[in-house]
């Protein structure tokens, strides 16, 4: 039977829970942790995507394509995120409609709207 999954999307860590038997139950991730770092990454050479702890572990090797603290950018204009732009290693660009987009490096210069 379908269940509703609640996600607490935090700036640094996220947590997922369902209601089972009338009680909330926090779900563990594949590594057994109850919280998951709010980090995603793409390896442009292999095309693999990493989420959570694994994305965090490879951040030093792949800073352009490791996205974190993205919650700070959600729904904001480029002019509002000047401070965040200095703090993160990935590129934040302004689009024609003044929104802040994340630009992933690589041959295909892709932009993602947070």
């Amino acid at each position, binding site marked *: *039977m379908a269940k509703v999954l609640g996600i607490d999307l935090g700036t640094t860590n996220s947590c997922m829970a369902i209601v*089972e*038997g009338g009680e909330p139950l926090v779900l563990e991730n594949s*590594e*057994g942790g109850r919280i998951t770092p709010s980090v995603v990454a793409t390896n442009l050479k292999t095309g693999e995507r*990493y989420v959570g702890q*694994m*994305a965090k*572990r*490879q*951040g*030093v*090797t*792949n*800073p*352009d394509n490791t996205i974190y603290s993205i919650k700070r950018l959600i729904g904001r204009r480029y002019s509002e995120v000047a401070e965040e732009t200095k*703090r*993160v*290693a990935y590129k934040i660009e302004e689009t024609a409609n003044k929104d802040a987009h994340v630009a992933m490096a690589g041959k295909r210069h892709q932009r993602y709207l947070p």
Partner: protein
Amino acid sequence: MAIPNQSENENISVPDEVAFSETLSDQNHQTLEEELAKVRLEMDQFRSLLQRAHADFSNYRRRIEDEHEDLIKRANASLILQILPVLDDFQRALVDLPEDASMSRWVQGVRLIQRSLQSLLESSGLSKIESIGRGFDPWEHEAVSFEETDMLDDEIVTNVIREGYSLNGKVLRPSQVIISKSPTNGDNLSEVKET
């Protein structure tokens, strides 16, 4: 309650079904229809609730079985994770030992204590993650820095800062490693340092 005798029963005229329905007013009929609809709705709700409870229970039972199995495998994980820094300290203490001290009985005793601790942990299912010379794998490694070299391909582990361990095949603590990077692709390092 008094039971009427046979002669009285013969005199009572029992109304047939059609006649009985005719006696019901339209209002009563409508009330019964509404009650029936209400009961049917309740029945559907209870059926749905029962199905949900059954599914919840099946999921609960399956999860408890999985957790129990996992608990047996990883019963010592938390304790071993806290002991690992002691093992690290032993290794750090012995790695830079002066040559003249390495043969002393006191040092040999310390080595024996280290081996004894390591054997004890290995008997519980702990194994070291071999990293040097292998490709970087975020499942097992945590990159803390990289080293520019043209002797190796990109993303090969060149040095281990802190050993990683797995317990019964599951990564308990990833290795902290330094990986190779070709000198021409060194732009990213400066960006990391800036942040």
